[in-house]
């Protein structure tokens, strides 16, 4: 079972979280072109190794987290809040 160290709640089972998607995607502006949006939505690397992904602490504090996870071993290298200000606050408090 994957265990995720939520910066707000502590280490919890993955069943409390919902997987989001690729955290490395930079979403284009709303008025960007179809090709920019197509790239952002449909094209994904199939990474063998460490991958940045978003997880939502749905049954917890409801923070969206950026999780760096190895797709080979499921080992989690790092977890932080996606929102930069929340990230700052949780880091200061830890």
């Amino acid at each position, binding site marked *: 079972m*994957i265990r995720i160290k939520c910066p707000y709640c502590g280490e919890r089972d993955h069943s409390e979280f919902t997987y989001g998607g690729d955290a490395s995607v930079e979403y284009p502006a709303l008025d960007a072109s179809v090709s920019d949006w197509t790239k952002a939505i449909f094209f994904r690397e199939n990474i063998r190794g460490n991958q940045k992904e978003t997880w939502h602490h749905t049954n917890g504090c409801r923070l*969206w987290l950026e999780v760096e996870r190895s797709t080979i071993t*499921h080992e989690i290298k790092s977890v932080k809040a996606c929102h930069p200000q929340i990230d700052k606050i949780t880091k200061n408090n830890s």
Partner: protein
Amino acid sequence: MTSIRIKNYGKINKDKVIKFTWDNKEYSGYEGDSLASALLANDIRIVGRSFKYHRPRGVMSCGVEESGALVTVGSGSKRDPNVRATTQELYSGLNASGQNAFPSVNFDFGGINNYLGRFFAAGFYYKTFMGLPPFEWGKGTGIWMVFEKIIRKAAGMGKASREPDPDSYEHANDFCDVLVVGSGPAGVAAAQEAANQNLNVILIEQDSLLGGNNLAEKAFDSSLLQKQLESKGIRVMSRTTAFGVYDNTVVGALERVTDHLSNPNTFLPRQRFRTIRAKYIILASGALERHIAFNNNDIPGVMTANASRQYLNRYGVLTGKKIVITTNNDSVYQTAIELHEAGSKVTVLDSRKNIKIDLPKEIEIHLETLPFSINGSRKIESLDVCKTSDKTNKNTIICDQVLVSGGWSPIVNLVSHRGIKPVWNEENLCFVPGEIKENITVVGSAKGIWNNEDCIQSGIVGANEAMNSLGVSKKTISHLSVGGWSNPINALFEVKSNKFPSKSFIDFQHDVTAEDVRLAHREGFVSVEHLKRYTTLGMANDQGKMGNIIGLSLMAEQLDKTIPEVGTTVFRPPYTPVPIGALTGRNVDKHFRPLRVTPMHQWNIDHGAKMIDVGLYQRPWYYPKKNETLSDAYIREATIVRKTVGICDVTSLGKIAIQGPDATELVNRIYTNPFAKLPIGKARYGIMLRDDGIVMDDGTSWRLGENEYFMTTSTAAAAKVMSWLEELLQTRWTDLKVNVTSVSEQWAGAAIAGPKSRDVLNECVLDPNKITNEKLPFMGVLQTKLKDGTPCRVVRISFSGELAYEMYIESDYAHGMMDILWENAQKYEGCLYGLEALGALRVEKGHVTAAELDGRVTIDDAGLGKMASTKKSYIGSAMRKRGVMGADDRDMLVGFYPLNEKETFNAGTIVCEKNNIHGQGVGRITSVTHSPELGHWIGIGFVKGGLEKWKDVTLVGADPVRDKQMEIKVVSPHMVDPEGKRMYA
């Protein structure tokens, strides 16, 4: 075999006699017995019948690897099949019986299969079920059809109860620094060493007693060990099996709480499924002794050598009088000595030469000697033996038991769960765990370390590894080397027989013989995974614990490869079977999924509502009067709404409070239609798209203040929309100053719909002059008070197409709101209406819901294209017309009428052209209802090209599932009051 209970042996309590039933006859044993030891003590030899051939089978081991003594325990709803008699503790009143036999294991008609053996060879089922011509003496598959019934009935194991499981199960969660699996010498040493460093340690043991293989030592005291461990603060969990190891050093374990009790307290669960989250795992899971394949090696009385020692020293049962032990390694000699001391005549056959062993002179030993074939069918009469150099020249030894030891296999199953491949150790002829890169280590015989002292040292090393990893010590680690026997083992997996069909079993549970492996090879199965599936080797509930290695060695021989070249199959959880009930725990019946009810749930029921499940919610379906059917009731309800007024619980809609200086900006970015200039006190219907331009949800947002909105979503998408807004604000638009809060539970809502709805509302609120067409126009929002002073929110909004409102109130006041609404609605001959009437009213209006917005539909497909702003950018605006999504032959929303107005149709009907009723047709009907307004059935759905293309064409609604077809025509989805006059009235 003649097995007897003997004096001065065993850790059983001989003062406490326990009565139990075997095959309807009463026997007795002692407290501390297993069912197997009690059966052996009563000299019951035949306890099972084999899977395919119905050969008599006896007790073959003393633990979880048991492949012979599989029995059924209990009866009725508590009947539990395929229980290993070797691990079932004896209790007073235990009722066990043999299985897979008629009338009994002792005399079984199915035994005839033994003589039809050649028809049951490997791949038998595959070949015959494919319809290949069967047997030489038959013609075609006809004869097989006759045999199939008989064989299918005869092949199989115990039968599960067909009744609901009466037992309760629990889930439990544990956390610790170090989890030690197994309480043998290595596990105990590891646990103690870790506990000495004040680490939080859990030790789990599948057996009822601690000690592992120490339980085979005469002088060993298990309860003393238990006390010592507990005094160090170690949490000891016996009767608990670690069945799987998962990511993040999490272990799944099954605790058998009451399976050993005659009258357990009713508050106790039968079993507990434990999730143990450890920081470090030390696996001291031990090793299993292997069998040797030779002819008739399954006759009752054949057993692993160490098992016999366990029966002697743990249970005080001497399993034979004239015992032949056949081996290729040193591990049997202590057993030989002890069996001799206990009074048996012991002969040892060792396949090796030049070995040094000190034995009492009464024990005969024959070197370079192999077991060849057992004589006897229901019991062992004698054993034919031969020299390794000359298999044609045989001697016969009279005996009643044959003990075998073909070497030992470390239990690498749990490490294998982590995807770590075992490594073949040629010197010790066994697989040992491969390199582990996470917080797990393996100690003791699970690592191929054979001697007690070495195992203890290995346990200490393992604890040091754990402490180093956890940062509490920095010790130098020096691993012990694999092995430890003074004379090396030699390879002995099979003694080939010249008899055909050979009955040299390698997988006893599935009746797989050495010949089956060779047959599979001849037929081209060269991969070990294919071999496994073709022969079913290792696929019974013992998962090949006894036979896998022999099977591999035979395959290697056929392929002319080494065992590591052939490889091993991957072990997957569970290590031993886990009942589904334990996995389910308490999540059964009402607890299978949570039930959501609205705050007026009881009010609805009190007022006669029949309820229906909608997702997790229960909502009013219809409110029948007297003998009304569903159809009578919803047609009446919908008619009254169009005529006067109806009240409906709409609380299940999702509700989100959106607050902050950038609230308007957020709302404007997520809806397709403009929200930037929505005035305070007005609401707007809006459509949300996904990034890819497909419709996500529809709903309303009301502007309550400069920086505050109240959003409603559909019931189905409530949770999804909430998560979506949080994702946007936390990951993409982190500069927006806005907060979203789910208030779905905080507000109760009711729809008041129909031409008299304004009159009803005015009777309910404190200031009746407020609700007029001018002061509360269509889409107007009003924060006001009910007559009794309770604050409420009213919006003029319509799903039914009538003049209609929704009223929201704090959830605690829901009953009061419904009372006052209903009291006044009755004055206007109104009604309460449920989901069915709601559906009828919205289908008449062509309003879409989740049935239409199924994740494939664009805003244009749904006929709502004019709600997509061209003046602003929003989520999905770039993508909504990309490629095929802009094509003009897309499936578009339309209405459907049956051509013959008396006909009905169902949702799911496929719309086809008249001369081409085929495949996916040209469209589909998604929602249907009887229309009280129009007096016939109507539907909405989608058709390629939309109304324009099919306006005057007769199409066919095909419903192959219900074997129905009807002629239909395509109409506008706005079937009632298309101009919307009533809504604005």
